[in-house]
């Protein structure tokens, strides 16, 4: 038998929640920061010289659990090759009515030709539009994904696109902490190493700082990050609430 005096525990908890900040946001007006590993719409990458990375091997189509990828390879024309190797993907289609954004295609790709951007806000009104072909998926000459008119790109999503990241998280493993998990983006260089589970993470650089700040108040006490606990956390909270003067910020 549980403590009978704890009968009002549920009432206390729900009442305390009245004063806690909201978890949800009013979505279209206010958009929350995305996770650094957000899986969004795919892109097909190019090399610096403009050659396509895809070699038409169909590994992505083979690994896809929902069969949403359709690839056909063809021998490169000898006079103007499309990709550096022997073959290239001359048909590349992804059906976004089926895609579950598991990123297994990204893991399977031997040449890092297919990666995922963080953009998920795209919609279509008929089935034909749901199938993205090479015309939509290929990056432009500068290595950035095409911003199609029906897609809602936010700032920073394109910049994170080209780098390859693994679908499974090696950062849970201590030996991978602080190690860069991405290859260089076109024009972007190397990104900061992703946050590990021990101390010393650089959330500001990887883009998960905003998220952690938004969520830590709803966490159980033992899950609150160390820099948010105790006196240090208190000082930090107070400092964040005090408005910073504009002049000092700019100078």
């Amino acid at each position, binding site marked *: 038998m549980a403590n009978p005096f704890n009968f009002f525990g*549920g*009432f206390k*908890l*729900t*009442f305390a*929640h*009245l004063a*806690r*900040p*909201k*978890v*949800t*946001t*009013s979505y279209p007006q206010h958009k929350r920061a995305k996770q650094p590993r957000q899986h969004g719409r795919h892109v097909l990458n190019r090399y610096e010289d403009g050659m396509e990375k895809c070699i038409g091997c169909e590994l992505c189509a083979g690994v896809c659990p929902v069969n949403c990828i359709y690839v056909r390879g063809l021998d490169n024309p000898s006079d103007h090759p499309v990709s550096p190797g022997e073959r290239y993907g001359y048909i590349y289609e992804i059906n976004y009515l089926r895609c579950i954004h598991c990123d297994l295609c990204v893991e399977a790709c031997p040449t890092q030709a297919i990666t995922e951007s963080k953009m998920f806000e795209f919609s279509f009104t008929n089935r034909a539009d749901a199938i993205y072909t090479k015309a939509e998926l290929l990056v432009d000459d500068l290595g950035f994904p095409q911003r199609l008119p029906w897609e809602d790109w936010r700032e920073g999503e394109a910049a994170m696109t080209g780098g390859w990241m693994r679908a499974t998280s090696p950062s849970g493993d201590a030996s991978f902490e602080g190690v860069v998990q991405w290859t260089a983006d076109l024009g972007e260089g190397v990104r900061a190493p992703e946050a590990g589970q021990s101390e010393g993470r650089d959330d500001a650089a990887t883009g998960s700082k905003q998220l952690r700040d938004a969520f830590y108040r*709803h966490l159980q006490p033992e899950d609150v990050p160390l820099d948010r606990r105790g006196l240090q956390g208190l000082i930090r909270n107070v400092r964040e609430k005090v408005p910073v003067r504009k002049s000092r910020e700019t100078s």
Partner: protein
Amino acid sequence: MNALLATADPLFKHGVTWAVFLIVVIKIVVVFGALLNAVILMIWFERKLISDMQSRIGPQRWGPFGLLQTVADGLKLIGKEDLVPAGADRFVFKLAPYLVVLPAFLTFAIVPIGGTMHIAGHVVQLQIADPPMGILFMLAMSGISVYGVMLAGWSSGSKYPLLSAVRASAQMISYEAALGMTVVTVILITGSLTTHGIVVSQGGGIWHWNLIRLGLIPFAIFLIAITAELNRPPFDVVESDSELVGGFHTEYSSFRFAIFYLAEFMNTITMSAIMVTLFFGGPAGWVPPVAHLKWIFPIIWFVLKTTVFCFCYVWFRAALPRFRYDQLMDLGWKRLIPLSLGWMLIVAGFLVSWRWGLLMISVGIIAWLVLSRAFELGKTRESGPERVLPTVGERPIPGRVIRKLSDEES
């Protein structure tokens, strides 16, 4: 005839004239209009509060703070197709929503909203009606709403609503006993059945409220029983969204569904108001010594007290998980009814003399011991295969028939 009316309401002391008729009509229109608006606000209040308690935002699109969300929902429901299932009993199916919503409306008629006003030489009580049977009217109305629920479930011609309606009526009837018993304690100490009398007897300050005069227990029983009557969480096995897909009103759509929804929330408000009337002195409270404010302050007190209980109902919903059906029946029959019965006897005893009161307490303790021993015996009763009675006759659908049917289909 006039004398009879005058005992019921001082408004009819000089007979029923046009002015009196007009006052009565205005009272009815104002109160029911306010009640309907209060329902709209209550739905908004519940949705907003429950979302606050769950760290969500809640309705926000329509009007300031989402205040018009209920209006938008209502318009949407009215615009939807009004379906009557093929297997339904059409007349009863259409009648049932009104049997649910009318008691919700009518119960509010006996609630004293404010004190007494003087308009053009007429003494006007700020409540729609003050019938001599008073609070019994509330019990009668809650009895009728059971019919509404039962008939709605039965006439749908569908099995889940039927199951839910059977649950609902069993639940409402079992808690009505405890409810009635606590109302009796209130009537005993007031010496009057009328709601006006009940409120006036609690007028002398906070220590005269029935909540304290009767010793908290009747209020606690009443609160639990009335929550069960309302089919609100944690007693919402009737509606149980997860198992019975909304319960007795599963087959209802469009405006008829809106009526059920309206009735549910109107009942919440009405029962909060009844609770305030019975245990919290109704409109009693501090009144400033300014002549023109004397009639408005009781109304403010009444609204405030009622809002507190509306808040409590939403709080229950946020904090408590749903009762299992056997737990619900346990609480009703084995705990609340004996407790309310015993408490009624004790209150009655103390009203006669303190000796009788002490006697009743000792009788209550003995009865409690006997009852708990009986429950204990009932729990440890042996039940094995040899205790199960042999089956009588055949099962409704014998195995071979089922096999034959399934063979034919394949």
